């Protein structure tokens, strides 16, 4: 086998693996990414039902209702709009009314949200980042306010802990 031919084979192998990787990434990007929306954004934008989303905001005070078999209803608000959420499963340890929460699930007709994952913060002084940003947009967040000061509170050890949001519950 000539030197030229060997080099060609090497380049062809590199090219095809690279092409495969790029193809897979593009394919996966089109189908499996999930957007984060606040309740106001869901109200304002006509998002087709059946879309998979992450919904973030505060758990509305007094909205938590426990049904039979661990069915849980609550509402997520950003003080601009409110979305009703239904979830079946165990809530994360730090889930509380009036606190920040991120729910992942599917939007149903009538802007109801069926969550299959609920994430709360992992530390009392930490607010999910997306929620903080969304509230800021609504002018409900004060920099350095009582809920602020999240820095340095990441679970330090954490190179592979729960990551962005610590404990979670999943259906």
């Amino acid at each position, binding site marked *: 086998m000539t030197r030229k031919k060997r080099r060609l084979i090497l380049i062809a192998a590199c090219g095809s693996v690279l092409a495969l990787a790029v193809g897979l990434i593009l394919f996966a990007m089109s189908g499996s990414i999930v957007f984060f929306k606040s309740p106001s954004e869901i109200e304002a934008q006509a998002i087709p039902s059946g879309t998979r989303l992450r919904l973030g905001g505060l758990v509305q005070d007094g909205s938590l209702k426990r049904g039979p078999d661990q069915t849980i209803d609550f509402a997520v608000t950003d003080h601009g709009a409110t979305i009703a959420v239904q979830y079946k499963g165990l809530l994360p340890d730090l889930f509380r009314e009036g606190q920040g929460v991120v729910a992942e699930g599917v939007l149903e007709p009538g802007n109801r949200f069926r969550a299959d994952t609920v994430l709360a913060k992992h530390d009392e002084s930490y607010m999910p980042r997306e929620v903080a940003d969304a509230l800021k947009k609504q002018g409900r967040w004060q920099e350095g306010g009582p809920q602020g*000061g999240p*820095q340095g*509170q*990441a679970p*330090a*050890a954490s190179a*592979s802990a729960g990551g962005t949001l610590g*404990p979670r519950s999943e259906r």
Partner: protein
Amino acid sequence: MIVETGHFALALALALSLVQTAMPIWAARSGDPTLRQATFQAALGAFACVLFAFAALTWAHVTSDFSVQNVVENSHTQKPLIYKISGVWGNHEGSMLLWVLILTLFGACVAAARNSVPPRLRANTLGVQGLVSFVFLLFIITTSNPFTRVVPAPLEGRDLNPLLQDPGLAIHPPLLYLGYVGFSISFAFAAAALIEGRIDAVWARAVRPWTLSAWCFLTLGIAMGSYWAYYELGWGGWWFWDPVENASLMPWIAGTALLHSTVVMEKRDALKVWTVLLAILTFSLSLVGTFIVRSGVLTSVHSFATDPTRGVFILGILVLFIGGSLALFAWRAPLLRQGGLFAPISREGSLVLNNLFLVAACATVFVGTLYPLLLEMLTGDKITVGPPFFNSTFVPLAIPLLLIVPFGQALAWKRGDLHAATQRLFFALALALAAGLTVLAFHSGGPWMAPVGIGLGAYLIIGSVLEIVGRARGYGARRTRAAGEIARRAIGLPRSAWGTAFAHAGVGVVVIGIAAQGWAGEGLASLNPGGTLTVGPYVATLDSVAPRKGPNYEEAGAFLTIRNREGDEIGKVETGRRFYPSRQMTVTESGLLTIGASQVYASLGEVGKDGAIGLRLYYKPLVLLIWLGAVVMALGGGLSLTDRRMRVGAPAKAKGRALPASAVPAE
């Protein structure tokens, strides 16, 4: 007083690491090789200083010295001693100190390992490493000083985040950092080679033990972290594809590729430039990982906003080292003598393929991890790239990679014979297919990937066994059938051969463990005492719910009895919710019952006013294999490390296997 001395020791270490960097340059300038000796002394001194600083911080934590900010924020007098110690690295400042401690530890090891490496290469390596220590020490002293005092000192500390009060935390970060930071040595060796403009098999042999030991620790560290997340976060997942995990996975994949390409370089004097680039990329990914975890860019953009110095400083370190080393690479790599090309069907050819797939897989993880950050910066859109993305990119790249593992082993160096290799592997392929089909026949319910994974794992394990048996039996004229002779030869095989076999078989074990999760089951219910919940082949009965009190928490515990479907008792499980008053925080303690390599996993939810509890139960078949496999992999790496060639740093004489350093290229 001890605290101030610790602070002073850090400053001294900063100065010493500067000496460590400057001396090799001075030695090269003045042509006086004795100056290099100072580099070695400085590296040892820097390690001693950082060790002292670390001990001082540990002392402050153990004695609950609440005049130190770091102790106030992360400790509590009631906390058990082990968590007082592990709490030292359970926070930003302390974990950065641990990072630097391990960095200087590796530097000291290189300085102390006198026999193997040419002194000039060793001094230059330590010089580059000293620069890394210097910059990170500067980072600690200027932005993350663990020795800051508080006036007036509070009476009680705020306690460590309860999630981190776990034996897993005591072991996981040190292991992980030994891996992460260990790659800094490979990086420093690569940079030294570029500076010298010279690279050869001696270099490959010098760098390989360091890469290998770092890789072993990283493997264990990732496995430990995964197990910790599995039982501590309370929802039974073992890998979340979350950015913080990916941050440790990326250097691991790149390090695996580096390990394999170094072998090619050592044996065949090829892939030199590529190996140097991989060494740079591996440590760069470690730095990116540190940035992702430590800068707070993920947890909260506010950490950037409220304390921009930290994030910006680490970003600066990233730019300095990644940009600097890549620039050095672009400038000096063309000077390196290229190795030869080689036949595509050969051991080295398959190792190139291994590298291609590993790097491609690493790239998909990289894109999936950083794309959301980039997109948010550019457009403001917030997206999540979750498990579906990684499952449809990483997995398709991993499968062909795993398929070629035994093939590469079966091919000879220089010129392999694909047909003969296939014949040798025929047995493994047939058995693996049989294993997959058998599993399918008994458990037809699960996803189609699960039996495929079982077959793949079996194929890897059988392939490794065949490799050892084949080599012990010998080929051609040396072939023997006598069992005693085979056993004798098998024991006489180089340790690295055994290490390779173990590591590859370990991958197979992990794959089987992952595949078996296709048959995992889960159940959710509100239970009153006496109630039952069925999951997989097991039935759990709630015996009682009772409160308990721990040293720094109160707990509601649920006690369960697990029986099989026939009603025979298998064991008992308890799970609880702990309330930590000092942090006003509740943490679920999951309960695990190990049955063989499988587990039943119980997680307690809210305890209602009527005494009913929310209970989630998982059945995790063969789940322990995931972590045991990783341990087997690390064991294989450790076995390779004890190989004579690694220690002596010279080709083995008697066996005639290793090619001499001046190995001729294939053409």
